[in-house]
């Protein structure tokens, strides 16, 4: 029994990702001790919030056998319209309304994705490429192109919300952003949904084998509607958090974010063909990418080399997980 669970542990993608994360942290820490300072660690955690929430959405879509590259556009659309509306009514209430609004916009846009997908049987890559660019274009043509920096007070207050804050001896401040809790809660929620409910099993099932899932009795169409709307809603939440944390509503923000997020999800062990992946793996993938991108100055990599280093580490990491999973597949067959 004991040896069996041990073997399982070694076979798990998450275990190797965690090892990689620890090794990288130790390496960066060895080069520059400041890596382990609370300031740096808290700031790395803060950097995972937005990418992490996006990644949870993309994880769902990828597990269901699809792909979504429209979510950054949806996020920008949702937060920009929300902010513009709240500014026009001079909103000063709680943070709840902005979140709810942005989330609803995102969910509705996600629903459009799902409806297009199911009614025309198109490839998700093409559909989401189309909706993403249409939404961006609509936003810039009809809503606005100006960056808004005078955000409604509740959003500014949210960006200053910390669950830990301390003034150091030299007068500088260390703080841990409260927004991290939102990522944490969402991650737990989605983990439970995927592992413990029929809904979650259905999503794994349609990603693994759609025909088989249908025969077992899953309503494929309805599951898809759910997955894309949910991913849209997550994009809306991530968007409003991003906008609040950087304290700007910039309609050309987050461009190219999809690549980084998809890379994180795939790195986390989700299979692009669907049916495979976990929340824990996704979060580890995000952590790995944030760690790499956020440690280059600490290690002293000059600007020209930063992209090279990011690319090389990504190739190595994905290569390692792919090689390892193929080996364990072969082991299973033998």
């Amino acid at each position, binding site marked *: 029994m004991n040896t069996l669970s041990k073997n399982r542990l070694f076979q798990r993608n998450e275990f190797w990702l965690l090892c990689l994360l620890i090794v990288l942290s130790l390496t960066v820490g060895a080069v520059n001790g400041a890596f382990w300072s609370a300031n740096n660690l808290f700031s790395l955690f803060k950097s995972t919030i937005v990418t992490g929430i996006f990644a949870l959405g993309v994880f769902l879509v990828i597990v269901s056998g699809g792909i979504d590259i429209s979510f950054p556009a949806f996020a920008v659309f949702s937060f920009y319209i929300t902010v513009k509306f709240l500014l026009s009514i001079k909103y000063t209430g709680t943070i709840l309304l902005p979140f709810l609004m942005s989330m609803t916009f995102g969910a509705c846009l996600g629903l459009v994705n799902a409806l297009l997908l199911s009614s025309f049987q198109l490839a998700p890559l093409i559909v989401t490429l189309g909706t993403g660019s249409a939404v961006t274009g609509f936003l810039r043509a009809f809503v606005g192109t100006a960056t808004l920096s005078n955000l409604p007070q509740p959003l500014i207050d949210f960006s200053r919300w910390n669950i830990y804050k301390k003034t150091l001896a030299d007068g500088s401040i260390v703080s841990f952003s409260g927004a991290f809790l939102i990522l944490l809660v969402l991650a737990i929620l989605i983990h439970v949904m995927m592992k413990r409910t029929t809904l979650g099993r259905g999503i794994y099932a349609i990603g693994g084998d759609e025909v088989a899932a249908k025969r077992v009795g899953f309503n494929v169409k309805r599951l898809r509607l759910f997955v894309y709307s949910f991913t849209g809603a997550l994009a809306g939440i991530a968007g409003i958090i991003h906008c609040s944390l950087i304290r700007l509503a910039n309609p050309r923000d987050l461009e*190219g974010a999809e690549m980084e997020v998809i890379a994180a999800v795939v790195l986390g062990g989700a299979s692009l063909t669907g049916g495979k992946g976990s929340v824990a793996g996704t979060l580890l993938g995000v952590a790995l990418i944030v760690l790499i991108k956020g440690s280059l100055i*600490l290690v002293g990599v000059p600007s020209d080399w930063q992209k090279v280093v990011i690319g090389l580490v990504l190739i190595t990491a994905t290569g390692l997980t792919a090689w390892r999973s193929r080996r364990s597949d072969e082991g299973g067959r033998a």
Partner: protein
Amino acid sequence: MFRKVMATSVLLMCSLLLITGSASTAEGNFRIATVVKVDGIAWFDRMRVGVDEYAKETGHDLWMVGPAKADAAEQVQIIEDLIAQGVDALCIVPFSVEALEPVLKKARDAGIIVIVHEASTQQNADLIIEAFDNHAYGANIMKQLGEHMGGEGGYLCTVGSLTSKSQNEWIDGAIAYQKEHFPNMYEVAPRIETYDDATIDYQKIKEALVAHKDLKGVCGGPMPTSAGAGLAIEERGLQGKVFFVGTGLPSIAGQYLENGAIQAIQFWDPAIAGKVMNKIAIAFLEGKQDIVKDQADLGFPGFESIRQDPEKKNLFYGAGWVVVTKENVDEYNF
């Protein structure tokens, strides 16, 4: 039969287009496109205001376009399309000087007038007009930053892209000024690249604050650094300990000027730069290119007495920069 009708109608339409096209130029309506690095950011929104205003004043067909994201290949593509459309002149703000050389040569070979801004080393251009001498602009940033830092301590410079010519020349000018006037100051690390994205500015400056305990000043090249640095300094409670002076717009950095996180922002009015470029392009098309000469007055603030480069005869400088601090930030609405 059908095919024949189609072919004739297409031919007819083409010739109609040709006639109307040549007719419009005959009336003296020039078609001039202003192609900027990236569309939809506050900076170039302001330039669009200038271009649109000037179109109304002159009655010519003037408009502004740019890629949705800062990308050299996309800018080349836009210029290719404009050449195919047969515009009379192009006013260009290059994202990458080198990447544009071939396509600008093609434009000039096709008889299109090419006016360039923010790229003093461009080879294939009829005329290059700079708002100011780039080294002098950077030196003025460093002059203020050095005074705030008391002439001592480490500083860090940012550029949008390491291939962005003007921004790198500003930073060259800033560093040269520091070496001459503030010998006790030093760069903590080589200039960093932040891709004109406030989030990246914020994250990298926070990381640099951890990595370099001796960092006391930030010299910002691209506009978003003013917001990113402001947020990082405010969050860490480093007002009065770490200083920022650099390019910025009041609408983006106003809140940080007001709360003392940053000390001064410097800019030139992109609307005027847009008007000047178009004025010169029209002059060239009308055969009046000799209005652009050393000491000439182009009739816009900062361009009352332009200076010709002694070595490169088609390169001219204005002297139009504005410094905004807490005291005069209310005077600007863009």
